[in-house]
């Protein structure tokens, strides 16, 4: 222990001895670490944005449908006994859920028509699940028995304003065509124009009436930000036994998001591997130079009784000190940069305006997780030690007789 402290002490002083070279090495490692921490934090921020965009635009954390439900099938498939599902959700301690009726339809106005997805939502419960209510730019969000909420893009191309009327066509419960005129009561705008063009909302009561589907619910969406969705789906499945229901998590609803996150993670891991390989080579290079320069000094240290393992420790500790200094510097800079990027973010509108993963916002904000920061630093220190091992091993095998003869 005493000798370990002694060797560490010498190692530390040796780092300061060739201050400029040490500084360059430290800066290079710190820069690599800095970039990795920021990339990682931006990646986490990106993934959060993608998840928010998926969960809070429409999907929710979980959706409950009648067994055999298929997306985009016009025929209404009723959730059997929605009350039972709701009490099961309440039993699980969940409060943010919303009953919906979804169907496809046609909107007509002034000689133009477009197909769209009509959602009948519970005006009180839906804002707890999705963020559409917060994206209303004109008029108001759906309220009981009033009119229809259109996306800005659609309203613009139809030239309609709140107060104007549009015609809707769809199929009722029995599969018969229905037509109705509805006043436009609100206009919303998400960051995703494609969504806005094809999604319209009204109160669930109004849509049920239009579709002659009194009391019918086709979808129950649940939002739970803190619980693991798969575990939640499992417990819900246990409290709703039998073959009546189909429970799907957002990961099943939007597998593309999960795949993209997985792809990003894999790319990041490759990047991390490359950066740390470069760091390790840099350290090995510096320490090899150090050992070469101190050939005679190491010979004297060995001659006066330092064991090979002692010399190994001394050189590895020097390498570790370089890593530790870089770790402190790189982390401090990265934490500061992440704080800034977490607050102000990077505006990616030009790259993401038509991207489904950015329905909520185009500003990418960094999100630094403590575990990522700790892991990045741990890997830096381990890399520093690994990078020092080869030169240290060479140093430990120096023969003092050769070293002393070398003046």
């Amino acid at each position, binding site marked *: 222990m005493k000798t370990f402290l002694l060797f560490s002490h010498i190692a530390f002083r040796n780092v300061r001895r060739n201050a400029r070279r040490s500084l360059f090495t430290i800066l290079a490692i710190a820069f690599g670490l800095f970039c990795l921490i920021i990339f990682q934090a931006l990646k986490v921020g990106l993934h959060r944005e993608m998840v928010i965009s998926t969960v809070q635009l429409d999907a929710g954390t979980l959706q409950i449908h009648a067994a055999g439900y298929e997306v985009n099938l016009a025929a209404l498939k009723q959730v059997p006994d929605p009350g039972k599902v709701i009490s099961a959700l309440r039993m699980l301690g969940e409060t943010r859920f919303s009953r919906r009726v979804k169907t496809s339809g046609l909107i007509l106005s002034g000689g133009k028509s477009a197909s769209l997805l009509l959602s009948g939502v519970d005006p009180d419960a839906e804002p707890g699940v999705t963020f559409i209510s917060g994206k209303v730019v004109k008029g108001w969000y759906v309220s009981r028995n009033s009119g229809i909420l259109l996306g800005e893009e659609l309203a613009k191309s139809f030239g309609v304003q709140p107060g104007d009327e549009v015609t809707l066509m769809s199929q009722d419960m029995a599969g018969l065509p229905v037509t109705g005129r509805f006043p436009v009561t609100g206009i919303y705008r998400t960051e995703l124009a494609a969504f806005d063009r094809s999604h319209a909302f009204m109160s669930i009561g109004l849509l049920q009436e239009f579709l002659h589907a009194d009391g019918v619910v086709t979808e129950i969406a649940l939002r739970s930000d803190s619980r693991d969705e798969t575990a939640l789906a499992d417990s819900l499945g246990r409290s709703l036994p039998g073959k009546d229901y189909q429970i799907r998590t957002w990961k099943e609803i939007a597998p593309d998001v999960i795949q993209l996150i997985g792809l990003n993670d894999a790319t990041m891991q490759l990047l991390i591997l490359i950066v740390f390989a470069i760091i390790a080579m840099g350290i090995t290079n510096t320490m090899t130079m150090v050992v070469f320069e101190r050939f005679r000094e190491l010979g004297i240290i060995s001659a006066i009784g330092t*064991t090979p393992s002692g010399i190994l420790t001394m050189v590895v500790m020097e390498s570790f000190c370089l890593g530790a200094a870089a770790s402190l510097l790189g982390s401090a800079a990265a934490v500061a940069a992440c704080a800034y990027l977490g607050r102000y973010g990077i505006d990616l509108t030009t790259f993401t305006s038509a991207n489904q993963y950015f329905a909520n916002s185009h500003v990418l904000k960094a999100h630094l997780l403590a575990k990522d920061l700790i892991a990045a630093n741990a890997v830096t220190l381990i890399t520093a030690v690994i990078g020092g091992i080869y030169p240290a091993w060479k140093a430990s095998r120096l023969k003092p007789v050769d070293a002393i003869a070398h003046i």
Partner: protein
Amino acid sequence: MALIEMIGVRKTYRTDGLELHAFSTDRLEIDRGEFVCIAGPSGSGKTTILNLIGAIDFPTAGSVTVAGRKTRGLSPADAAKMRRDHIGFIFQSYNLIPVLTAYENVEYVLLLKGLPAPERRRKVSEALASVGLKDMMQKLPKEMSGGQQQRVAVARAIVASPPIVLADEPTANLDSVTGRDLVGLLHRLNLEQGTTFVFSSHDPVIIEHADRVITLQDGRVANDRRC
């Protein structure tokens, strides 16, 4: 048994297929408390013999026994421990660890031996006092003159009270007055503490100080006289 025994020793270096006999002797002994100078012209084998005694180098044939232990066949780690426990070294120049102060350089060997702090403090102070450098303790090697650095090296060599101190041309890089002072210091330590000193030199003024002069010629002992 003598403190240092060389029996049937031969040291050959092989470079590019050429064999070079650097040093050989049938029998050479040095006793406890001797103050020995290895003399001889350049290339005569002075450094070689000191390295063999110091377990820095090992004989090609024969045996070197130091303080009752054969040096041949020791692993690098065991040789290091043997040097740490039995031998003090003073080299011609650049003896000290540049990043450590005079005090820390001397303390280094005691830390290697794991001595407790109060004992270290006492011994280091004593050693530095005995070489007359008590107020240089906090200086780094580069802040000291060549003679002062050599005296710190002497303090480091004697601080752990090893039975043997080896010094390969300790005065070669010093001016004659400083060189003579240094040998005077070694002699005083030899008389006061009974430490065995074996040093090399080709300076007649320095050689004069020794109690025993072993003169080498072409890797063999040409003359061994006690004064």
